[in-house]
């Protein structure tokens, strides 16, 4: 276990090193931020001024060195546009993103599990078929389209919810649903097939043979086993959720890191892009870790090494 943690830590550091280097080089390959940041109505000299001020006139290797040294000290530099530490901006935006992904997980996970279980138990029933059709639709519909449709229906037509913004619980409902729908669909489909497989297994027959209540058979014996593949997918889907939040946050004007990332890409704010990508990578690593540990909790046959 101790060795496992150490190994994972080393892996993490390596992954983060690769990612930060990759982002650094990729951004430099895309263009010259001074030319991209300067107001189009300014002068040629102002491009040079800006380049000097941002330190972009230094040799690339020197820029890379100070960038890496900064990361080690937890300093991603100052945002070009906001003129304040990139990390501080991320701190301001991470809360809403975590809130959004968490709420969307809390909606989509139970929804997917319950729908998947009912579908499996009532296989080929009307309910199962409707759930199947809905799941296929939800998977196929891009989340941004769903988001816009929700705004059309719930805000403009029904006047039930505000179309965008951050702060009240009413405002989180639509983005969380739009973000979580596809996840719920994936979880529902997977739970269904996983449950079907488990329900046909010998130990379920054993449990029924013991005269246990059907509820106990389903939840304690079947679902518990069916969860193992679901956990993997949820772990993988968490990445999609984070990625999807970039689009969803833009549509719903949600002040999270997705929004910040899009904005900083538009503004060519290198430090903020670099810091945001780094933080998202850290989240991925954490999610993977949590997934691995969840396996161990659910299935004692799995050992981490």
């Amino acid at each position, binding site marked *: 276990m101790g060795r496992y943690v150490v190994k994972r830590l080393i892996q993490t550091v390596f992954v983060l090193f690769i990612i930060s280097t990759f982002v650094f080089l990729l951004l430099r390959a*895309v*263009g*010259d931020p001074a*030319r*991209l940041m*300067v*107001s*189009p*109505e*300014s*002068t*040629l000299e*102002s*491009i040079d*001024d*800006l380049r000097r*001020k941002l330190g972009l006139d230094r040799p690339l290797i020197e820029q890379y060195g100070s960038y890496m040294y900064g990361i080690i000290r937890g300093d991603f530099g*100052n945002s070009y*546009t*906001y*003129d*304040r530490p990139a990390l501080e*901006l991320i701190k*301001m*935006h991470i809360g809403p993103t975590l809130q959004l992904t968490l709420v969307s997980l809390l909606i989509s996970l139970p929804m997917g599990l319950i729908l998947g279980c009912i579908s499996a138990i009532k296989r*080929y*029933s*009307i309910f199962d*078929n*409707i759930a*199947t*059709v*809905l799941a296929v639709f939800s998977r196929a519909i891009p989340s941004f389209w769903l988001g*816009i*449709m929700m*705004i*059309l*229906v719930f*805000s*403009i*037509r029904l*006047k039930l919810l*505000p*179309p*965008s*913004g*951050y702060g009240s619980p009413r405002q989180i409902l639509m983005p969380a649903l739009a973000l979580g729908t596809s996840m719920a669909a994936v979880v529902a489909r997977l739970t269904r097939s996983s449950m079907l497989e488990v329900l046909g297994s010998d130990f379920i027959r054993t449990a029924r043979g013991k005269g246990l209540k059907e509820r106990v058979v389903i939840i304690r014996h079947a679902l518990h086993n069916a969860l193992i593949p679901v956990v993997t997918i949820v772990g993988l889907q968490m990445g999609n959720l984070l990625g999807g939040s970039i689009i969803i946050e*833009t*549509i*719903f*004007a949600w*002040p999270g890191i997705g*929004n*910040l990332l*899009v*904005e900083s*890409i*538009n*503004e*060519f704010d290198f430090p903020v892009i670099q810091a945001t990508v780094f933080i998202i990578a850290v989240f991925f690593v954490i999610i993977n870790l949590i997934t691995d540990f969840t396996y161990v909790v659910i299935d004692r046959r799995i050992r981490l090494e």
Partner: protein
Amino acid sequence: MNVNKGKPRISLLISLVMVGALLLSACGSAASETEAAATTEDVSQVIVVQSADPSTLDPQKAGGSAGGNISFNIFEGLTKQSEDMKEVLPALATEWTAVDDTTWEFKLREGVKFQNGEDFNAEAVKYTVDRMLDPDEANDSSSFKTLQEAVVVDDYTVQLVTTQPDPLIPAKVFGLLILPPQYTEEAGTEEFGQHPIGTGPYKLAEFTPNQRIVLEANDEYWNGRPAIDTLIFRPVAEASTRLAELLTGEADIVLDISPEDIPTVEEDKNVHIEAVDSKRVPYIGMDLLEDGPDFLKDVRVRQALNYAVDVDGIIETILSGYATRLATIYREDFVGFDETLQPYAYDPDKAKELLADAGYGDGDISLKITSNGEIITKGDEVAEAIAGMLQEVGINAEVNPQSYQGIRDMYIGGQEAHVGDALWVWNWGSREPDANSPLSGTMQSTGITSYLRDETLDAMIQDASSTVNTDERIAKHKAIQVYIYEQAPAIFLYDAMDIYGVSNKINWTPRRDQYILGSEMSAAE
């Protein structure tokens, strides 16, 4: 047996139909008439939704319009411009005169205080100018290229000295927003950008990046407290969400309504469209550099390109009529605008004739047009339309769509790298009612997005920009218009309109300079 086999399929079919019906009912239900809730609601708060979020409210940093919209409520310049930008009116300066060719003297308003109690005086003006011109600050001073220094004459008199005669200084100082010296120094750049203090009618109450900026009426404002108590600015990047904010009544003013959404807004009883000629003038840039394409070096080809494009058709079909046709890149409000100059007519035959004269037959010319939908409204569609029209006259034109970053990287200061196409969609927004800024930026050899090297034109621009006498300047600008009209170093298009969605609860008309000023709003009825 059959029943057993068929059952799952039947129920599948039923569920498909049900889902379909659900979707249809969501999309197809008749437009629900909402009660016109425009009763005598207390309009003490106005919510403005725009596409971008300002990163700083420091007026010397906030180059883009998103910050400008807001800064101009908190700060004031020495003068201000009328909504149509044709007149320069007193603001923090009460009167101004040209002392000599390179010196303007401003008399300042007395008794004005900054929102933190600091006095407004000549020192504040000098401090503001010094800070703007400090090369270490890398501030946005592009409008003030000619400004050399500010000289304090007495507490309420200040002189602005320029390196060359600049007749536009009174108009330009609308944008010279005055900062409180003491507070600005104490706060430092970063802090000042987050907690700005000015002399304006509104004070900053809250600034949460990507969320909202709240301004509150300044009770001590020298020109009287504004009618609207609170102004809230919210960024919403997605156009359809912005529209939704307007239609649900969550927002009172929404910027950048898409032309195709205009009918939707007009159908709604609670909101309306406000449109104004923009300060931005779109045009199709041409690569006229030495090592650029040869065919563009022939003036007949450049004219042919102008004749080949049906600009009025583009305005009608793509922009729903929300644009004003222009003969050149001169706006109607520019000093010396020549209304007698007729825009190039749509005449494909003439275009073909000119191309033939220049020695280019069908298919001899192949070119690409770089396009982007953010640089100008509907930029991709406009470029597609133009490419189609050029094909009509035998030019193999192709559109090269680029990202906002891509097209900026190609053309802003990109003369050396020179990786652009023969043509590209571009625009220029001038803060002053004068052609100096677009000419020096896009047509003078030293311009940041100029791909033209014409010594005659360089001299004409230089001459006009340093002419103080108004009549002379008008004459010189008319000559420039005729010259660029004939030389056609661009495909001239139109002045697109800025389209706003506005709640019927408030009275407000947009400004050509795109600033959204709370002091110009009031409750309707």
